[in-house]
């Protein structure tokens, strides 16, 4: 692939992400709120057009019901597209990509953080998405979610000053977590997606069998070029179908990696 094609591919993904960000926040009528987004996006955002899949799952578990439609939608997207939604559509992933690019512009250090500790996502799912909502009937992931703070809490406070009277310790904690993440994205590639996001974990499992996937050919020398290109710091040659791969296809700039399916 020549350099012009590489730039065009990166620009194309950025456009997909930007359009998705606008569409996800293009509230015109509420009917679409009965459909879950295929990515993490807070339905409490003033302009949200759909429902957050995680918020919906917690709500159903709180009711003692299995969210079949939401799980089915996520599984359908995952079966066809793997974790591509994270790389091409998720607004929160897009904002993290932009943050990391800003960090590079500002010449902050960029340590390569290993993906060995992505098991933390299982703890998040087990505790905040399933365990606590099931037993306490409260959406505990939402209560701490930094995406919700950025996309819903802060915009609501901006447009409705009366809500400022309701600010309490939980809000301070939420803003603290968001601030921590905002600082992290300047130096670490997509920290939320890699170590926290339950939607990414779900799609990551689908990556193992999804129609869309990556293929590394026999000429690969494990030089690490794909890891440098990858927005998730993933070593593609070790496991092209890893749950960490968001199928953004940045690594296909290497001549030994190509999309399959």
């Amino acid at each position, binding site marked *: 692939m020549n350099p012009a094609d590489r730039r065009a591919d990166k620009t194309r993904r950025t456009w997909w992400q930007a359009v998705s960000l606008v569409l996800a926040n293009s509230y015109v009528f509420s009917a679409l709120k009965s459909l879950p987004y295929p990515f993490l996006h807070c339905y409490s955002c003033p302009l949200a057009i759909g*429902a957050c899949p995680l918020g919906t799952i917690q709500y159903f578990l709180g009711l003692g019901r299995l969210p079949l439609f939401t799980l089915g939608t996520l599984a359908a997207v995952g079966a066809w597209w793997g974790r591509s939604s994270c790389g091409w559509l998720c607004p929160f992933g897009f904002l993290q990509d932009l943050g990391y690019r800003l960090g590079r512009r500002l010449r902050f250090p960029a340590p390569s953080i290993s993906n060995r500790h992505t098991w933390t996502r299982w703890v998040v799912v087990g505790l905040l998405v399933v365990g606590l909502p099931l037993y306490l009937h409260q959406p505990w992931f*939402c209560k701490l979610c930094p995406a919700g703070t950025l996309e819903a809490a802060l915009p609501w406070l901006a447009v409705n000053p009366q809500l400022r009277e309701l600010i309490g310790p939980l809000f301070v904690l939420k803003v603290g977590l968001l601030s921590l993440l905002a600082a992290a994205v300047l130096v670490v590639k997509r920290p939320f997606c890699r170590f926290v996001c339950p939607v990414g974990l779900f799609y990551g499992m689908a990556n193992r069998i999804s129609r869309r996937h990556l293929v590394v050919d026999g000429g690969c020398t494990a030089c690490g070029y794909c890891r440098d290109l990858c927005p998730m710091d993933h070593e593609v040659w070790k496991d092209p179908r890893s749950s960490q791969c968001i199928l953004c296809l940045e690594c296909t700039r290497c001549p030994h990696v190509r999309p399959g399916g």
Partner: protein
Amino acid sequence: MRGWRGHGWPLLLGAAVLAAVLGIWQGELPLIYRNAVILCLSCVGLGQ
């Protein structure tokens, strides 16, 4: 020979569509809607 993974995604897709249809049949869409349109103040960290 693609192995079992070559057949994995159609099976998952079929199961996913079945689950989604079952969900619609069980009346989940109005519940999703009801949850999504109400601004949950505690969910966004306000009111506590």
